[in-house]
């Protein structure tokens, strides 16, 4: 069950402040990194909503992000529609795709759910990869950014775009936290904990799962829009299943089922990637080993492990999960 503890709020505020500071004081390269972190953080939050709180480990979140990016590309580049309504429609399209996948796969669980989402993600990837109209392997370019000049904001500047991406990350976190704290979020947690009991209580578990996937896909769609506008170029690579696998790595790296963990995971993942790539060409072996170590060490991730450690120190060792550590004091 999700609790926005004080610790989580502090860590979120500190992380966002750090990103803003890095974005404002750093140069063009720093701002590129900030946007990369923001895209990955949004996508990881979206995956944590279903994987961490609903037990639905999706391997199609990369594809969902890509669907939104391509929908945005089609509406703006192919049909010449204005960016803002196009983005709203693209995110809605991603949410519809997520809901449909969630509904169809609602009866499956465990490895079958993983495989089924993989199948749907790969279908979307293959269709886009094969489509001549969408540029196939070469992708699509010339996607516009939002035009906010009527507000006096120049989205073309790297600083503005970096801040815009950070603001969206904060908004996505708040939206996810709000939904997880609602009656719907509690029900989702109940289904994750004991599906049979929730069914006995009269809950339509498949409908809830589908809605959770839909909401998660909506957030993933936002990541897709930020990614599409960032480089103003999209390619089918966005949808390939290994991207979904990488997002899952980020969630685990930060801490599954903590919501703030994925944000920390995204910061750590991108920073590490740029550090390691500077030294060696073999960045993937580092990620692979890191992932194995984290899972074998207990799978709590960077934030999850710290929270667990703090809870133990505070004498709450009898609590089994980090989540419950916030039960006292501030709910």
């Amino acid at each position: 069950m999700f609790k926005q503890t004080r610790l989580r709020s502090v860590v979120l505020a500190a992380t966002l402040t750090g990103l803003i500071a890095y974005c404002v004081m750093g140069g063009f390269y720093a701002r590129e990194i900030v946007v990369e972190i923001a895209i990955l953080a949004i996508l990881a939050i979206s995956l944590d909503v279903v994987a961490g709180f609903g037990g639905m480990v999706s391997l199609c979140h990369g594809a969902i992000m890509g669907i939104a990016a391509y929908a945005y590309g089609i509406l703006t580049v192919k049909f010449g529609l204005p960016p803002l309504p196009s983005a709203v429609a693209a995110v809605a399209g991603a949410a519809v795709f997520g809901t449909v996948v969630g509904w169809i796969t609602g009866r499956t669980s465990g490895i079958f759910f993983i495989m089924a989402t993989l199948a749907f993600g790969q279908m979307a990837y293959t269709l886009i990869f094969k489509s001549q109209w969408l540029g196939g392997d070469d992708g699509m370019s010339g996607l516009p950014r939002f035009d906010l000049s009527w507000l006096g904001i120049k989205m073309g500047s790297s600083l503005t775009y970096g801040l815009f991406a950070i603001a969206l990350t904060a908004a996505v976190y708040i939206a996810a936290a709000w939904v997880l704290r609602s009656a719907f979020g509690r029900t989702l947690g109940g289904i994750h904990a004991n599906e049979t009991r929730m069914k006995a209580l009269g809950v339509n578990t498949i409908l809830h799962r589908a809605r959770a996937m839909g909401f998660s896909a909506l957030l993933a769609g936002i990541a897709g829009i930020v990614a599409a506008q960032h480089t103003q170029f999209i390619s089918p690579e966005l949808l390939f299943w290994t991207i979904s696998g990488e997002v899952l790595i980020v969630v685990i790296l930060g801490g599954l089922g903590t919501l703030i963990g994925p944000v920390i995971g995204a910061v750590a993942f991108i920073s590490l990637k740029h550090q390691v790539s500077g030294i060696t060409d073999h960045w993937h072996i580092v990620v692979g080993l890191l992932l194995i170590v984290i899972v074998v060490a207990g799978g709590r991730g960077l934030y999850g492990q710290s929270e667990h450690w703090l809870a133990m120190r505070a004498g709450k060792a009898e609590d089994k999960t980090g989540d419950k550590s916030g039960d006292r004091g501030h709910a």
Partner: protein
Amino acid sequence: MDTGYWALQFLNALQFSMLLFLLSIGLTVIFGLLHFVNLAHGALYMLGAYIGVSAAASFGSYWAAFFLAPVGVTIIGAILYFTLIERLRHAGPMNQVLVTFGLIFVFLDLVRMTWGDIALGLEAPAALAGSSEFAGISYPTYRFFIIAVGAVVMAALWVGLTRTQIGAMIRAGVENGNMAAALGINVNRLFFLVFCVGCALAGLAGVIAAPVFSATTGMGISILIPTLIVVVIGGLGSLEGAIAGSLIVGFIETLGAVFLPEVAAISSYVLLAAVLILRPQGLIPARG
């Protein structure tokens, strides 16, 4: 001309099916018996091809590669088994997916460090070079050899699983592991044996594929998804399922790519999704 073209495509499909079978049979029995999801199975296939290339280069013979690649991959598999897989057996599918996904990355970079990024060819043995006539059409002898290896392994596994005591023990383990253990079967030793055989077959698939497709760093990831599709649509842990699944996926992908390229690309994913939703136990489930 037309029938000859069809026959050629039929043989290509059969040959791809046999490679898929060699990979999926190991994966499916490990899945069925250990309940372990090994995404790194494709990486073992890749390692088989690269070890084969090196073995052939050192010993100057394809046959050295043919025997050493499965042995080498089995040793790597055994190390993996004792370091990671044994302790992850009860860790749930997500942790298994994550760790073996991590292993894909590790093996990928290890191969790039050891053998470099360029595709490495492996020469087919002289005895199998050239083409043979079959039913009036000419087809590379080496590809007949791949089909033959697949058929021999298929027959050997069928006899092994259905006609021997160890096969009966494995089937008992797939059916109900706890009950098999209670009846005095050393299930852990059985698990290890099955895992090693699965690795050896992945290595074998890699080395026999290398002369046709070359050893490339991308080969592990690209074969993984069709193999997983075979395993799921066939039914986890089922030999008959792996045979049926390999033939279905092999033929859909090969013939589809020739005759209906637009539809074929997604058809195996559609099949996978349909089986998962309508018949999650697979077409020919191992448990009755």
